[in-house]
Each structure stands twice: as C-alpha cells, then as structure tokens.
C-alpha cells in the first residue's frame, strides 16, 4: 500500500521542484530552516488541496491569493489576513497584525541584538541565525506553507516574511514567478 495524506507520502507535486529554488537538494547540508520550509511546503500543498476541493474553480491569481488570505488563513490561523496589498505586477504583501504563531515570541530573547535577522527569505537562501533561534526561523514553516498552498493551486512563488518591531505583527511577501494558466 502506498502512503498518502499526512503520512510518509511519496507523491511529490513536481519532483525536484519540491524544495525551493536555491536550496541545494535534499542533502543534510542545508540549514535547519530549509527543512522547516520544505516541511511547510508539503503541508501547504496538502492543506491547500483539502480546503479548496469543495469550492468553485478559481478565476485568476488574485482569486487564489484571496482564498489564501481568507479561507486558508481562517482554517489555519483562526483569523483572516488583515491587509492585502499588491503592485498588480505579481507581488502581494499579506499583513497579519496578530500572527498566531508569533504570539508568544519575544523579540528580545529570541533575536538577541540582531533585529535584522528577522527578515527571512524562503527559497532565496536566507541564512538562519547561527545557533540561535530567530523570529525569522519561526517564520520559515509558514513561508513554506504559503508557498505550498499557492503551488498546489498552480502558482509558483517565492515567499518571504518580515516582522516589524511590533510583534506579533508580521507580513509575508509573495513574489509570483509563474501564474496559473
């Protein structure tokens, strides 16, 4: 029997594409963040499929991003994204004023003195803080999650996250590389 769903799934949406661009394959050489990002990606793909199966097909990319901000966000984070901005050229910024997974994160303790380490690029090879958990590291999983949802709905994107000084507010930047056809 073959594994499916949450389990030890062999099915990959498109082979080597599973790990983000810039991540060097499945080697153990990648930082801990790479693993978190790709786990997020896998979960994102699966959840994206589950939550979109009973709705009408999407009109366009904006429709998919709206689904992400409303339906998906509500299921996973129990609230909607507070603000969605776009430049109409493939960049979306999702702002969540109370991002659930950062509610008990503390800037001082987590990030040390290096607040700029909070910016994390998923798939763009951002370096996790050395031996120290940064808020950026906490956001690698959700970055992967977002990338996975979009991927499973036909959009390839690069997702990065930024925390402003005011935790638990957080924004995700989605740069679309290839639109749904």
């Amino acid at each position, binding site marked *: *029997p*073959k*594994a*499916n*769903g*949450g*389990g*030890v*799934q*062999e099915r990959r949406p498109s082979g080597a594409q599973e790990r983000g661009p810039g991540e060097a394959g*499945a080697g*153990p050489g990648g930082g801990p963040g790479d*693993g978190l990002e*790709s*786990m*997020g990606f*896998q*979960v994102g793909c*699966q*959840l994206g499929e*589950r939550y979109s199966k009973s709705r009408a097909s999407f009109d366009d990319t904006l429709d998919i991003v709206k689904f992400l901000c409303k339906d998906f966000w509500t*299921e*996973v984070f129990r609230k909607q994204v507070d603000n969605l901005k776009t430049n109409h050229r493939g960049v979306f910024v999702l702002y969540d004023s109370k991002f659930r997974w950062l509610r008990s994160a503390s800037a001082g303790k987590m990030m040390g003195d290096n607040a700029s380490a909070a910016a994390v690029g998923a798939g763009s090879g951002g370096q996790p803080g050395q031996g120290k958990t940064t808020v950026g590291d906490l956001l690698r*999983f959700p970055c992967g999650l977002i990338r996975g949802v979009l991927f499973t709905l036909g959009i390839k994107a690069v997702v990065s996250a930024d925390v402003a000084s005011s935790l638990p507010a957080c924004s995700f930047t989605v740069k679309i590389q290839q639109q749904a056809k």
Partner: protein
Amino acid sequence: MSSKGKVASSVAGERINSELFTLTYGALVRHLLLDLESPEEVNKQLDRMGQNIGVRLVDDFLAKTNTTRCRNFKEAVKTIADTGFKMFLGIDAKVTQIGDKECKMVLNDNPLIDFVELPEKLEPLSYCNLLCGVIRGALEQVSMKVEVLISKDPLKGDERFELHMKLLEYINEEYPFADD
C-alpha cells in the same frame, strides 16, 4: 470541518487545526526519513524529540491542572490517560491492564495517524514513536523511569492503538539540582 477535527493545544481551551497538526507530524516524519539512514534511526530520533517535549510538557501540565502528586506508577498512568491525552491531544485513552510495574493503554482515536498508511518497506518504522518519548520524558521529570513501547498499531494492521508501559525504577531526587 468536522467537530472531531480539532486538537487541544497546551493552553486550555485553545485549539489548533487538527489537519495542520496531523499533516505537520507527517511532514516531520517524512523529513526524518529523508535525512536519516534507516527507519530505526528515525524511531530513535522521534523518541528523543518526544522526550524533549515531554520534559517541558510536564511543567505545562502541572501548571494548568490541579493534579496532586502521583504517589506511584499506577496513579501516574491514570493521570496520563484521564487528563494528559485529553488535554494535549483531545482524545480519550483507556487503561486496559494495570499492575504495579506494567500497564497497557488503549487510545480510541489517534490524530497522529489520520490519513497515514505505511508502505511495506517502512515496516520497522514506529510512526508514533514520538508519543513514547513524550511519556518517558514527562515521567522522568516526576521521578519515574519508564519504558514505553507501541504494542499495537493500526498502521501495522492492529485494530487499535495500544501503548505498553513498564516501570523501570523510581528515581531518587538528588540534591542539589545540577545547573542547566
């Protein structure tokens, strides 16, 4: 989402999406399988991770429940089954056999294995080994050294999920506590 589809998290009354939980655990196990050489190694790693969780979880548990001190293994097992599983996984566990040093516990519903099937080549994988580690780690913090094994596993064809726990020894608390 079905009403069953919610898992209790550490904060009483606060819940996380159970599909997210289940799928994330699946992704974790899958990732370990990719990174480590054999399913046996994955079992060990899951156990270690669980232990780390258990060591912390017990503090959370004691802080949020009005549990009085468990004087012996039997009481500890009952507390885990009655309160622990309910609180952290939102499921009921039933103690089916209990002795002074051994017990068996059946989980009626195990959210970790929703959607999961194991391929044959992963026969040695003990998919839920994290749970064993959690219990071991938690009891270690309250002075009991135990061994926990998955004795029945629906992923391997059994009807229900069953844990087998064995008390190895009571640990005497040593003073002064070593610094972390």
